[in-house]
Structures are given as C-alpha cells and as structure tokens.
C-alpha cells in the first residue's frame, strides 16, 4: 500500500492493546474472586488425583483408580484413533466420489452429485446420531449377528473383527518388516519401487507365521474372541468420514478440473491408457492444488471428533467435559486442557500438512 500508517494510528494500536489487556485483566480478576468465593483454587494438580470411573473403550490398559492424567492420555488416544480412521476413509471416499463426479457415465456422475448434495446440506451431528440411533442400535442382537467376510460379526453391540493370533516369530518378523519399510522410504531416491520388495516379503512371512485367524464366535448370549469395535466408534467414524468425503470430493473435482486440458491430451497422444492418464498425469498435478484445502478438511475432522459426545464415544470432550468435570468440579481447568489439546493437535496437523505441501509444490512457485 502506498500509505504508511499515520502517527495517530500507530499510537492508537497501543490504546487497543491496553483495552484488550484491561478486559483480560478484569475477566481474570472477576474469575479469581468468584473462585475464591466458592473456595476453589486454580491449578492442574488434580490431574494426579485418582479417577473413579470407567472408560469403556480404550487402546491401553486402564484400572479403576488410575490418575486423571492417564485418563487424559487414553482419551487423546481415542480421539486420535477415530480422527485417523476417519481421515483415511474420507480421503479414499472423497477421491472416489470426486472422480465419479467427473465420470462420462451419466448415472455414475449423478449418483455422486446426489451423495455430495445430501451429505453437505444436512448437519453432521444429525448424521452421526442417525448412524448411531437409527442404524446401529436397530441391528439384531448377538444371536442374530450379520456375518461379514473373514468371519467378522456385526450386531447391536458393535463390530467384531477377527484378529491374527501371533505365532513364535510373528513379532520379530513384524519388527523386521517395519525396519525394512523405513529403510525403503529413506533410500527411496536410490531404490525406487524396488525398495518395497523386502518389506513386502517380510510382511508376507509375518502373516504366514501367524498361528491363524482368531474369529469372533457366539458364546452363550455374547460374542467372544476377536476385537470388538463399539458401535459408538463405528457411528462416529461413519459420520465423520462420510461428511468429510463429500467435501473432499468437491476439492478433488475442482483440482482435477484445474489440471490443464493439454496435459491430458499430451498424455493421451503418448499412447497412455485413460487409467494411466489419470494416475500418472492428472492426479499428481491435481494433488498440488488439493493439499491446502485438504488440510482444513483434516482439521475439521479432528475438531468434529468432539461430536462423539453425542453418541457417548469416550473421546477427549465426552470424558473431560462430562465425567471428569462432574467428578472434579474443575471447570476452568478442564476447558483450558480441552482447548489446549485440540489447539495443539490442530497446529501439529497443519504443520505436517504444510511440510508435505512444500514437498509436493512445484519448485520455483
């Protein structure tokens, strides 16, 4: 801009800062006075107290009487789990629907359009509650479970997936495969796709060494064996994934349309088949346009995972704004913790995506 801020404006901004600071001081002062009146201090020491509640779904061990701090860790893991699952599913689904939106087939194109419009124009919370109450809770009981491929069972208590029973060498082989995969990624420039041969072979050996699949089975009135995915997780995951998939589909569509037509024609004239044109020429270029808006969709998924509170999925918001707040009575602290953790996860995710964006960006842009 041609104008430099005037001296008056420059002085004015300090007045604004003083006003903001004054408001903040006044609010803090009032809050402190109110807390004193209710004989409540402020501090995070309560995190080391013993928590007497159950967390029905968890990835690591939880015993009655563990500290609030451990409960926090469990909840963060649950939040990250559902967010990660939803991000993967939403990306895959969004890519699929976005490509369908551009299909030459009229039916396919319009089915994708109807999906996108239906999902984008109804509230996410209604969708999540719909999946939970109107779909998953009306499933039959364990005795009439739906049997899915690989022996997985679906009933009103959730989804029961088969698990691999570890053999003698399974753990060691899995570790080796992970090391080989990391090496292949590090030496990607030198080895290219050949680097993936060793990890793939090791992973196959790992699968072969497993003593077999442990399938969930009906035992009395319940299901035993396998790993149980609670319906709350399934509903929240479905709600988050489908909603974000509709938005990602539009991002994918816009990005594909933004790839110059000449690129496609040049690829076709080189004799590439349409699938190859899409995979080798169009999508890699569309990816550059897609990354920034995708980042904000991923952040939306992470933030919306707090809607798990509506279906009682034990994530950060549900446990801390509910159980922990009621038990400890620490209103300010719980909300500060909640906001700080969500803010931290958001900032880390966007930092990671920005790093990826710089890597895929065109040099010189």
């Amino acid at each position, binding site marked *: *801009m*041609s*104008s430099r*801020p*005037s001296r008056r404006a*420059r002085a004015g*901004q*300090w007045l*604004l*800062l003083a006003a903001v600071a004054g408001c903040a001081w006044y609010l803090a002062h*009032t*809050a402190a006075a*109110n807390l004193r009146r209710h004989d409540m201090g402020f501090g995070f020491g309560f995190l080391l107290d013993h928590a007497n509640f159950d967390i029905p779904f968890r990835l690591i061990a939880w015993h009655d009487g563990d500290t609030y701090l451990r409960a926090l860790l469990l909840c963060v893991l649950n939040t990250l789990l559902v967010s990660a699952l939803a991000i993967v599913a939403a990306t895959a689904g969004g890519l*699929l629907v976005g*490509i*369908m939106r*551009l*299909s*030459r*087939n*009229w*039916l*396919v194109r319009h089915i994708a359009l109807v999906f996108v*419009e*239906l999902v*984008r*124009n*109804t*509230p*996410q*919370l*209604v969708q999540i*509650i*719909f999946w939970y*109450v*109107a779909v998953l809770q*009306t499933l039959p009981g364990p005795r009439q479970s739906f049997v899915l491929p690989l022996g997985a069972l679906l009933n009103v208590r959730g989804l029961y997936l088969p698990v691999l029973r570890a053999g003698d060498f399974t753990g060691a082989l899995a570790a080796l495969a992970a090391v080989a995969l990391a090496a292949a990624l590090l030496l990607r420039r030198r080895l290219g796709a050949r680097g993936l041969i060793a990890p793939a072979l090791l992973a196959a050996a790992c699968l072969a060494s497993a003593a077999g699949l442990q399938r969930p089975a009906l035992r009395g009135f319940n299901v035993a064996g396998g790993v149980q995915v609670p319906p709350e997780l399934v509903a929240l995951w479905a709600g988050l994934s489908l909603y974000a998939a509709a938005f990602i589909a539009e991002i994918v569509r816009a990005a*594909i349309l933004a790839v110059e*037509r000449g690129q496609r024609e040049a690829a076709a004239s080189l004799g590439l*088949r*349409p*699938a190859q044109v*899409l*995979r080798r020429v169009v999508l890699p270029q569309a990816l550059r346009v897609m990354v920034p808006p995708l980042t904000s969709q991923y*952040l939306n998924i992470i933030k*919306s995972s*707090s*809607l798990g*509170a*509506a279906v009682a999925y034990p994530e950060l*918001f549900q446990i801390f*704004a509910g159980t922990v*707040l009621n038990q400890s009575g620490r*209103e*300010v602290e719980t*909300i500060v913790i*909640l*906001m700080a953790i*969500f803010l931290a996860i*958001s900032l880390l995710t966007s930092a990671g995506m920005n790093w990826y964006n710089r890597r895929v960006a065109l040099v010189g842009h």
Partner: protein
Amino acid sequence: MSGGSVAMRLKPPRERRAGTAAWAASWLRANLFDTWTNTLLTLLVVAAAALILPPLWRWGVAHATLSGTTRAACRGGGACWTFIRVRLPLFFYGHYPAAARWRVDLSFVLLAVFAAPVLRTRTRRRGLAVLLLVTLFPALAAVLLAGGVFGLMPVETNAWGGLMLDVVIAFVTVAGSLPLGVLLALGRRSHLPVVRALAIGFIELWRGVPLLTVLFMSAVMVPLFLPQGVSLDRLVRALVALILFNAAYMAEVVRGGLQGVPPGQQEAAFSLGLGWWRMQALVVLPQALRIAVPAIVNTVVDLFKDTTLVSIVGLADLLGVVSQALKDPAWLGFPTEGYVFAAAMFFVCCFAMSAYGRRIERQLAAGR
C-alpha cells in the same frame, strides 16, 4: 471406478432434425453405453438401484402411515409419519405457547419481507435494505418473540425451540459475526503490528478449537467471568459464543475477498485524499464483500448446520426436540423417522441457500 470413465465431458452430437427416439438412443449411447467399462458401470448402478430403491419406496411411501393420532395407527409396516405429523408444532416452535405462535409466524413473514430486497439480484438501495434487515427487523422480531411489551404475553427463551430456534440463532450469529469478521479481516491485513497480531491471534485461536468446546465454555465457564449477581440468559451465552467463533471464519472469508480487490483501487482512493476508514468503507469493502458473497453464503450454510450443536449444551433446537420426542414412552421406536425428518428440514433450508450462493457465483463469474 475405472479411470476410463474420467475424461473431458463431450456433449453428444445433437441431430436437430432427428426424432425424439433417435435422439434418446444417441443420448443413451453417448452417456451410458459408449465403452464397455461404461456399459458395465451402468448395469451395476441399475442393479444396485433395483436392490435398494424398491424397499426404500415401500418403507417411506407405499407402506407408510400418515393418518391417525396415536402410534396404534402405524400398522402398515412402513414408516410412521404420523409421529412427525402429530409433533409438527413441537418441531417447528418448540415449547412456545400455542396461543402466541402467531407471533413466530409473523416474525418469519417479516424476515421474508425484509430479506427479499437484500437477496434480490437487482435492488436499488441495497445498503438501506441491509441496514433495515439488521436493525429494524431484529428489534421488531425481538418484541414479537420475547413479548412483555404492548400487552404481548412474555415468553421466556427457555420456551423457544424447534426449527424456529435454529433460524433465530443462525440469524443473530450471522448479523453479529459478519461485522466482527470484517473488522478482524481488516485487522489481519493492517500495517499496524499490534493490531495485526491481535487479529491473527483471535482468528487462529477460535479456528483451532472445536465449536463444541466453545459452546460448552459459554454454558459452564461464562458465569465465572461475570460479577456476582449478574447472570446471562442461556441462549444469549450460546449466541455470544457462536458469534465469536464464526467471526473468525467470516474474517478469513472476507480476507479472501479483500485479496481479490486490485491494489490500484486503494492507491486511487488514497490519491483522491480519502482517509483509511473512508477508503475501506467506500472503495475497498464494497468490492471485497461482493467477491466474497458465495463464500459468505457457504459459511452461513455451515453455521446453520452447526446450530444443531446447541442441543448438546441443553437448548431445545430442532435436533434437541426431536431427540426429546423420541424418548416419549407413547412413541418409542421411531428414531429413523425422527432423524430423517430433522435431516430433511435442514436439507431444504441449506440446499436453497447453497443454490442461491451458486447463482451469485455464476453472476459474478459472468460479470468479469
């Protein structure tokens, strides 16, 4: 999905003189059966539709019940729309007293009257229309809805509910967050470092946390920040939270519009001797907001959908009253009907708004 189906969309060559049947055949060939992959896809889609649509039709229409007043009427085996019909007043007005519901209806008529000139494409004095919509209309609607003056029976905000509450919340939130968002966007582009830092801090803080935590804070924590003896209505607290939260999103949308205004405009305004505020108000913002209208409409659609979140902090919006009604022992067992109805109501409103936004976008694109 095979990549073969993605390609530039070619319009089927249209034989003008050919008959309808010939045209239909050529359309089918070009759009559904042009390659073997497409033919396969078409057959798959038709098979899936044949599997899914008939049961859906039987449930929702053919075997559904709409008449009657009790659940005993629902014996067709399909959807029980009777549940919805009987509860319709609850879903629209919440627990607003039946004798005063005409006031809600009148407020909505007023909203349509005041909003029409703002939304119409060709309006003279749009500025005046906007001013009336955000000053006179809210005053009239507040008198009508809350009552307590001119002999109108007072109605507590606790009794407000249903779809009406969603609309009230959305309107107040837009009216409050848009001006705040404009200020924040200007602040973020300011050359004054302190102003810029404050604006960035505010915007990124709200955008980094879930709306639910913000609403929850308004419900639980705000009383702590008020002096002793002062209390705020629960609805007002939620509104303040929603306004602050959405202002951050509006700010980013307006910033996008500001970036679309050519810098020459500012330089020209400056050389005409306009000061900073007059330059922004008379030259920059009118152009920036025009560019930003489609994105603003998208934000409004998002925030309208997000009004359902107030049901988690105990306000009885449409989703809240539907969930309440589903717990009624006399009407147990109709969650699908209830949530499909709630989703349909939101779909109608949001789809209309999205369509309006797309129309404006096309006009803007054509005007360039």
